[in-house]
């Protein structure tokens, strides 16, 4: 059975957006089974077509960062998201956060499963690696 890798993402900024995708695509490429749970401000990262911004005042320079990444051939957020999905990374939305943020399932990227902490912990309990990104 594949080794399981679980991540929790609680922030929605650019850096917190990219990290689970980099880790997730890599782990899936190494043959691991990957589960990512988005909660609180992290939830908006699952919104269709979202473009995450750098944190705080740096948000003004998000475009510059995106250009720089393109220049060194690092894929952008949406591209990485598509890559992760293709590799079979599983995405989960926290049901309570959806209620708090007024988010509907139709607004989330296709394939997102909605669940609560208990269901995610059930996966995480049998997981070899767990990371919290927040």
């Amino acid at each position, binding site marked *: 059975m594949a080794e399981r890798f679980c991540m929790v993402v609680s922030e929605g900024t650019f850096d917190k957006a990219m990290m689970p995708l*980099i880790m997730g695509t890599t782990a899936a*490429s190494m*043959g691991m089974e990957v589960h990512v749970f988005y909660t609180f401000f992290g939830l908006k990262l699952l919104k269709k077509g979202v473009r995450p911004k750098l944190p705080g005042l740096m948000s003004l320079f998000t475009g510059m960062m995106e250009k720089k990444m393109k220049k060194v051939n690092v894929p952008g957020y949406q591209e990485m998201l598509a*890559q992760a999905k293709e590799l079979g990374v599983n995405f989960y939305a926290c049901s309570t956060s959806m209620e708090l943020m007024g988010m509907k399932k139709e607004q989330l990227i296709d394939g997102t499963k909605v669940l609560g902490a208990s269901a995610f912990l059930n996966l995480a309990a049998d997981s070899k690696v767990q990371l919290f990104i927040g």
Partner: protein
Amino acid sequence: MDKDATLDARGLMCPMPIVQLAKKVKELKSGQVLELLADDIGAKEDVPAWCNRTGHQLLAMEEEGRLIRIYIKMK
């Protein structure tokens, strides 16, 4: 070294060489040798780690300036 296929991952940064590698491997058969070309310095550590996890065998790694040339035998 004899090879059955080449994956040119030059110009790609982590994690893309590993992602491309995982995709390429699906096209190959057991026992075949893949040559990987990379210039992301992280590949020197990342590819052996990937081999360790996936069970494919790292046969050799050579460096020519910035170019890293790695030979992997499919499990």
